[in-house]
């Protein structure tokens, strides 16, 4: 990162684009807590989160996905989703042993929420399938469903369209838009599919060499000479 500074408005779907090596995923790693920054500040809803671990940023309403889907392969699609809500009574070993009826009640609630999320991303037919057996596109949808299970305030999506066919891509875009409109979720999306970014995101932030070089509406960004230079190289 090189003096990278940006702000994201609540409820917006913000696109984060830039050439390979611009620092987009590194930025996600820093914001989500996968990597601790050596300096600077990261603020979520007025609270500093730099240096926090991923499970701590999650508790504050931040959920992320990964460029290469990281599903729990030998767990079913349903289990992948039921894992997410927090805190769960049954995650305490003592409560799991001593109050199984409370855990069962909570499990029923979480299961029906998971089935709703699967319905939302059109994966209901794969409920009991091992997540490792899903196609890349289905794994991307599963990651999206996992973010919905968390009731997040902010979702960081890292290349949700990579390796996804056009039909599934439409489903993913629709799911993101629906979550934003119906649930008020804020999204930051790293994506190389410019059609998707231009259709879905506003504003768009452009990064290059670890810094923000442009920010604006899709039209503004498309016409910005710095963006063209970053993608195509400078004219001599």
């Amino acid at each position, binding site marked *: 990162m090189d003096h990278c500074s940006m702000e994201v408005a609540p409820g917006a779907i913000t696109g984060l684009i830039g050439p390979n090596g611009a620092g987009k995923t590194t930025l996600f790693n820093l914001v989500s807590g996968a990597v601790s920054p050596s300096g600077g500040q990261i603020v979520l809803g007025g609270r500093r989160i730099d240096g926090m671990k991923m499970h701590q940023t999650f508790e504050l309403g931040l959920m992320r996905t990964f460029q290469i889907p990281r*599903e729990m392969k*030998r767990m079913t699609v349903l*289990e992948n989703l039921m894992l997410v809500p927090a805190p769960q009574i049954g995650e305490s*070993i003592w409560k*799991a042993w001593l109050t199984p009826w409370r*855990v069962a009640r909570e499990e029923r609630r979480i299961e029906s929420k998971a089935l709703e999320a699967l319905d939302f991303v059109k994966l209901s037919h794969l409920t009991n399938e091992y997540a490792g057996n899903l196609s890349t596109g289905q794994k991307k949808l599963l990651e999206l469903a996992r973010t919905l299970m968390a009731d997040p305030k902010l979702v960081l999506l890292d290349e949700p369209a990579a390796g996804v066919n056009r039909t599934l891509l439409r489903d993913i875009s629709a799911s993101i838009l629906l979550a934003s409109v119906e649930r008020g979720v804020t999204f930051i999306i790293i994506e190389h599919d410019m059609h998707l970014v231009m259709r879905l995101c506003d504003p768009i932030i452009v990064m290059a060499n670890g810094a923000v070089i442009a920010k604006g509406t899709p039209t503004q960004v498309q016409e910005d000479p710095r963006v063209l230079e970053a993608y195509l190289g400078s004219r001599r």
Partner: protein
Amino acid sequence: MDVIGVISYSAGFAIMAGIYGVFALGLNVHWGSTGLFNIGIAGFFALGAYTAALMTTQTPDPALFEDFKFGGNWSELGFLDLGIDLWFFLGLGAASIVCGVIALAIGYVTLRLRDDYLAIATLGIAETVRLFFLNEKWVANGSKGLYRIPKFLGDWISPENYDYLYLVVVLVVLAALYAAVERAAKSPWGRVLRAIREDETAAEASGKNVFNFKLQAFIMGAIIMGIGGALFAHNVRFLSPLTFDPLLATFIIWAMLMVGGSGNNKGAILGAFLVWGIWSGTQFLPGVFSDPNFRFFMIGVLIVAVILIRPGGILGEERKVARSADGARI
């Protein structure tokens, strides 16, 4: 061998298989559920066994046992002398506490690191424990070993029938541990462990404090192994550092879990009975076939056969499905 002899041998066999079932359950918490690569089971095995033995064994007659040194004459303090063998339970409890505390210390410094470091640490701890009991003679009589470890309720029953009583004790403890581990594994707690086994980063990104859960699993598995060690001590009634040879105190337990089915508690117990059955049964083979090396070779053949035919083990991990889909419980 007459019928009585066969029954008596079977009881002795089932006691050892049941004790190994306890170890396999502990390893299943570590590896099967959480993916913690513990190759130092012998360390917790030895700690559990020695702790229970030191809590219960009385100093033998100095005239009979010259130069017998150990620090375990606590059972002679008398404050729990209530006419029943409460010391057995105290030994079991102490074994689990000691193993839990040691696991906490090891886990705290190693579980933040990659799996291979945990493997090295557990292997190192197992050797350290063995060498400690070998060299620190004042603790448990060094290489000469600790003997005359008492039988639990040994005064209640004749020596020739004692194995039946102890078999019941072992099976009750095994059943209780199975019930506890199974309930934990099927709870959201167990689900988090499996998520960690599959992908730590994704589990952390799903809001789980991975380090805390790994530490809990590591301690739980170690406690179970400690209880297994205590049961073993009261069965064989003699312990020396050589007892905790890595082949019979670590690797055979791995074989049991792999054969029965990693990630499945029933599989862990089944694997213990099968592998111990092969280990015990092959000693009756004629000539060179009863050689320990050949017997271990047979266990190796079994592992290879299971891996080829059923890579997940005989029972394998159960798939948790939605209640609403087919009525099965999660």
